[in-house]
């Protein structure tokens, strides 16, 4: 799914090889059961040299993956950060368990976590991150290292971000469109996953009921003389048909996982757009502040009051201020204006820098998405074809048996 030959993946092979259950005490000193995943890494040239060294490995649990991702989100806000597999099983059809401890769920999560690591390791910006590297290679003390970066303090509060979204005046049109696209993508993939899960449920029912044919044919064959053999063997094929749906739906689950990855990617995309809105908003705020200060200076210099200021009002009410007071004020404003211009320059550069980097990654993401989803659709078609071929085989066999009835 991910392309080899970029950054970290050039140097090392990464895999999430196994999953295991552990029990231990949690933060509030209560017994808990959780799953850990084995991350294996091996230098790329090791295999080609003929030797096959034992890979380095360490165990990590899902919450550590979450911590890594949160760190990446804050540290690289202009990157569309690859998503983790879902925290809880959603869009399940009845046969599938919603239990996090279910072995099938754990297995699918293992695959999803491996996919996450491979995506990060092949990302042009993220793959060279030191914290990511130590996540893969240093079992002990990694958590402390992450916290030491102080990334949590750098995180934007949700309130701040929400505020910016509502108040920003001139966001880059492309980002606004991207955000809208992210909304649509999330909505339509959710709908698709829901519909698919319900259809899978029904299909399961159709196949399984055919198993009843198997049972009845077998019983019926016992009371017939000439028809017995044909019925009996037809019954076996009906049983085979009923059993075949398990594999079919398991394969479809992989397809659903591919869709889910992009469902969550939509969120990452929107996060980048929101960050843009925030930086743009902060630039606008700084610019607005500067303009207001400049206006105040002008009024003070010319003695006309156009902008409202408390000082201005009070001086109107309680009398004008002295020339010395005015001088002092002017001087302060000048300093503030200087600082303000610096800030605007800074913020402008930040904004431009952000837009540039983010748009590069968004374009990269678009290409990746188009490629991956097209492959997913193709693999879906291949699955359907395989299902049809199985159906043809079973019913041809059954037909032969029936004709011997």
């Amino acid at each position, binding site marked *: 799914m991910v392309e080899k030959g970029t950054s970290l993946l050039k140097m090392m092979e990464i895999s999430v090889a196994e999953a295991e259950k552990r029990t231990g005490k949690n933060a509030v000193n209560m017994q808990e059961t959780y799953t850990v995943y084995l991350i294996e890494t091996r230098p790329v040239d090791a295999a080609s040299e003929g030797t096959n060294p034992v890979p380095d490995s360490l165990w990590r649990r899902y919450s550590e993956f979450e911590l890594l991702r949160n760190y990446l989100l804050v540290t690289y806000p202009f990157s569309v950060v690859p998503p983790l597999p879902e925290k809880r099983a959603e869009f399940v059809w009845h046969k599938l368990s919603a239990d996090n401890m279910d072995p099938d769920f754990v297995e699918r999560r293992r695959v999803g976590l491996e996919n996450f690591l491979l995506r990060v390791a092949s990302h042009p910006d993220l793959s060279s991150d030191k914290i990511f590297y130590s996540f893969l290679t240093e079992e002990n003390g990694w958590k402390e290292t992450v916290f030491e970066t102080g990334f949590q303090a750098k995180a934007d509060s949700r309130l701040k971000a929400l505020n910016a979204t509502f108040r920003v005046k001139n966001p880059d049109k492309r980002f606004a469109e991207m955000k809208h696209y992210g909304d649509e993508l999330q909505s339509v993939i959710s709908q698709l996953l829901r519909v698919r899960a319900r259809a899978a449920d029904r299909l399961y*029912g159709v196949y399984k*009921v055919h198993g009843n044919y198997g049972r009845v044919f077998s019983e019926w064959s016992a009371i017939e003389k000439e028809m017995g053999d044909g019925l009996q063997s037809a019954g076996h094929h009906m049983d085979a048909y009923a059993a075949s749906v398990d594999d079919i739906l398991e394969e479809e689950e992989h397809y659903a996982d591919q869709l889910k990855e992009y469902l969550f990617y939509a969120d990452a995309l929107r996060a980048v757009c929101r960050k843009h809105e925030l930086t743009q908003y902060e630039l606008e705020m700084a610019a607005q502040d500067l303009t207001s200060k400049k206006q105040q200076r002008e009024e003070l210099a010319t003695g006309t009051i156009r902008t409202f200021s408390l000082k201005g009002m009070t001086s109107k009410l309680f009398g004008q201020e002295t020339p010395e007071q005015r001088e002092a004020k002017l001087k302060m404003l000048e300093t503030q204006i200087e600082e303000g211009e610096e800030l605007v320059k800074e913020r402008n550069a930040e904004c431009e820098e952000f837009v540039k980097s983010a748009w590069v990654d968004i374009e990269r993401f678009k290409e990746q998405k188009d490629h991956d989803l097209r492959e997913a659709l193709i693999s879906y078609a291949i699955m359907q074809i395989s299902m049809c071929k199985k159906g043809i085989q079973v019913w041809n066999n059954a037909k032969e048996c029936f004709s011997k009835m």
Partner: protein
Amino acid sequence: LLSQQLRLNERDLHDTTVTDGSSFNASMQTSPASMINQYKFEEDAEDTKDIFVTVDNPESHVTAIETYITYRVVTKTTRSEFDSSEFEVRRRYQDFLWLKGRLEEAHPTLIVHPLPEKFVVKGMVERFNEDFIETRRRALHRFLNKIAEHPIFSSSEDFKIFLTAASGELTSYKKQGPGFLSRMGETVKAVAAAVRGVRNRPQEFTEMQEYVEAFSQKISSLDKVTQRIVREQKEYLEELKECGPTYALWSQSEEELAEPLKDVAGCVDRCCKETEEQVKNLNDNLIPVLHEYALCTETLKAVLRRRDNIQADFEAKTEALATKKADRDTMRDDLDKAEDRLEWANNALKSDWTRWQKDMRTDLRSAFVDTAERNVNYYEKCLAVWESFLHSQRTDAEGNGNVDFS
């Protein structure tokens, strides 16, 4: 000719008057025993088929009292006892019921193919619903064809009248026939016999009864399983119908992906159509046949009961002769007649049973083969749909040179 003689003899045994007006030599009576030996069924009815019946063209009739449906019954035949080679009449369900009743009465131990039921209450089907009428029409068509293929029934005078008489003629013919009182007498005898019960049922008829019991359960299960499959398929179809539009909706937000998404939407929609077709096939073909054979088992049980009654009657008369002192001559006469009736009934049943089993095997075999074939067809069509999608993606990809299909 042979079958006509047989019919006459049977009527004698029932003490009813025959008023069918057909002319044949009444002196051609031979002993029942020798006749039974000549009671053969034509094995290759197909090659010598000389009568073709179709039921079609349902029409609704409204009168002051009621509304009902009539069906057109067309007969083409080369048989000499028919005045013409082609007949066209209109019949309603009641008329079919009447015919069935007459055949059962005349041949209590022969197996008459079942008629579709009067009313499907479970499915809450309106009597005049198009699907219901079509299903009924097909069943009526099968019914008449089974009668036409039966070596004994097809020579029945009642059958002939049914196929040829104008509506008015049929009505008046229906009013004739054995009087009410004599039919009452038969019923009373039958009830009395039923109460008495049979003492020494021959093993083969007990085996038949056991088979019918088991078969009845199996066929009823198959009927239920098939109905359930249809239900599940319909529910699957409901969900699948939403898939295509969702892919189409998605394609509207995309650029590069718009084309493949639209294609997938199209594929899913086409598979929906095929699934719909498959459900219809099950409903129209397999289910009616299973249902008919489920009804058959009721007929078979009734036939076995009637045979038992005939035997019980004979046993009672045997007992009576042994114990009573008076009227011994009449009683011996009665007993002989009862014995003949029993022998007759048993042989008729045995032969018809063999014929029925053969028929059942053929009908069910072809129904299941047909179903399997349609399922293969269904999957083949869906396969083609998805393969054409793959093909279009491949040609696209080869053009762009960026997808690996290995």
